């Protein structure tokens, strides 16, 4: 027996040798390939992380192994029935003698080319900085008017209007109707964004997908639409409504909402909250001003009580106290001064009297001694003057009212006023009168007044 193969004599091989040769053939002549197929009989071994399944088409199938490391790189989950494009090495699993493909990469079928183009577009726009957080504009606090770029027939429109109605009942909305999927949708979306950009009455745009099939996001991954969103002068909220696949429209929009309702919430404030906020601020302003005034008044009061201002009052009080202390002393001083003056006066008085008496005595003596020495003529004149003097005194006495009274006349005065009564008109019945006699006075009451008609004399005037 020789190991050389002979066309006549078939070689005798072991299963291992066949398996090894089959592997060499498979790896050598087929090698690494893309396989388009449907996933079937998928199972993943939890312990190892390796996954085993079958790739099949209508006629045939091949066993597939996806080892943990390659499986971890997958961006989606494999499952039965999924059409995929798998890349791997065709080989033979020698222990079983079965051929299989060891899969290194899997992509969902049908996405490949479009997905690639989308990735390239995302990279390009990202490099331009269109997704940058710094580019994102803040949403208006209270938009004057909100544009809804969406399908007017969708449930999304109704949802958004309901949310806005609830939050801000008087919101002004402009619906910009577009188709959001199908041929030409991207162009309509772009045109709608351009139309919104031209207007001056809008403050925010919601770009909503509202309705449409969950898969078809193509219109929102359009470059022209992305640029129209970027060029829009007012903030754009995207509400494309697909959590897993982020579209380019989502990436360039200023804000991404997960649902149209959420977008409407972002766009409209709650009127009641605004009113409450205004009330609160107004209250705080009033309170702060009142507090300010109260503080100033307090500060004023504190200053008034402080030592600085209180001192003058203290000073006055101190002076007053000193004055109070001085007053009794002053009184005492004055009293003793007065007493001293009086004492001195008392002491001088007898001496003054004595001096006066001496002076008078001397004058009298001098007068007496001078009398004899007056000239006779002067003496006669003197005597005459003395006579005249005594005569005048006699006449004076005769004229005295007392002398008249002595002759039996009397004088009557009014009891109250003391007026001397001369005329009837001075008294009335009931008046008291006082009548003066030489040595008595009579008080009497008038019972009657009888005027006596004048005689031939003229009425005298006083």
């Amino acid at each position: 027996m020789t190991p050389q193969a002979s066309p006549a004599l078939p070689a005798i091989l072991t299963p291992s040798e066949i398996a090894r040769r089959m592997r060499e053939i498979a790896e050598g002549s087929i090698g690494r390939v893309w396989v388009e197929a449907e996933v079937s009989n998928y199972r993943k071994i939890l312990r190892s992380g390796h996954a085993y399944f079958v790739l099949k088409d209508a006629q045939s199938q091949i066993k597939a192994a996806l080892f943990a490391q390659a499986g971890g790189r997958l961006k989606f989950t494999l499952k039965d029935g999924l059409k995929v494009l798998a890349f791997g090495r065709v080989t033979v699993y020698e222990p079983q003698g079965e051929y299989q493909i060891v899969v290194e990469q899997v992509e969902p079928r049908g996405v490949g080319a479009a997905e690639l183009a989308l990735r390239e577009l995302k990279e390009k726009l990202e490099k331009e900085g269109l997704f940058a957080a710094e580019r994102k504009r803040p949403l208006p606090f209270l938009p004057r008017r909100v544009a809804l770029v969406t399908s007017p027939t969708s449930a999304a429109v109704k949802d958004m209007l309901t949310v806005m109605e609830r939050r801000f009942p008087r919101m002004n909305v402009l619906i910009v109707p577009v188709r959001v999927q199908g041929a030409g949708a991207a162009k309509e979306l772009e045109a709608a964004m351009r139309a919104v950009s031209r207007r001056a009455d809008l403050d925010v745009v919601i770009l909503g997908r509202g309705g449409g099939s969950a898969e078809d996001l193509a219109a929102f991954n359009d470059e022209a639409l992305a640029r129209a969103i970027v060029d829009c002068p007012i903030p754009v909220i995207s509400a494309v409504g697909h959590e897993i696949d982020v579209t380019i429209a989502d990436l360039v929009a200023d804000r991404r909402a997960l649902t149209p309702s959420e977008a409407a919430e972002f766009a409209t404030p709650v009127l009641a909250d605004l009113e409450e906020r205004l009330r609160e601020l107004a209250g705080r302003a009033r309170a702060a001003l009142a507090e300010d005034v109260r503080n100033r008044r307090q500060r004023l009061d504190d200053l008034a009580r402080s030592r600085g201002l209180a001192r003058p009052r203290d000073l006055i009080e101190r002076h007053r106290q000193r004055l109070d202390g001085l007053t009794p002393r002053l009184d005492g001083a004055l009293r003793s001064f007065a007493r001293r003056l009086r004492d001195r006066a008392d002491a001088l008085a007898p001496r003054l009297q004595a001096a006066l008496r001496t002076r008078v005595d001397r004058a009298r003596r001098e007068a007496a001694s001078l009398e004899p020495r007056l000239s006779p003529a002067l003496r006669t004149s003197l005597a005459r003057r003395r006579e005249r003097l005594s005569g005048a005194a006699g006449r004076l006495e005769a004229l005295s009212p007392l002398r008249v009274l002595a002759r039996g006349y009397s004088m009557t005065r009014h009891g109250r006023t003391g007026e001397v009564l001369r005329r009837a008109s001075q008294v009335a019945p009931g008046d008291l009168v006082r009548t003066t006699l030489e040595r008595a006075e009579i008080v009497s009451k008038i019972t009657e007044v009888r005027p006596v008609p004048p005689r031939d004399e003229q009425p005298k005037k006083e």
Partner: protein
Amino acid sequence: MAKDKEKKFEEHLQALEQSVSALEGGELGLEESLVAYEEGVGALKKCHEILDRAEKKVAILLKGDAEEPFENRKAADREKEERGKKGGGDIDF
């Protein structure tokens, strides 16, 4: 643009907030406090004016930037109408 001519609600609100925090800061002189208060009251008035001026309106944009009121009819009906009129000028709801 016309939209920048007039101050927005949030700018008035911000002015009001500034007045309030200035007043609450207690660092102002009496005159300044009164001025801040007056400014705050002015901003508050503007805010209320803007809120009062808001007018409920839902319109739909037609071709050529024209608008008409959007009536909340059944979505399906509108869709039919829209499809029926495709290519024929204004969308009528």
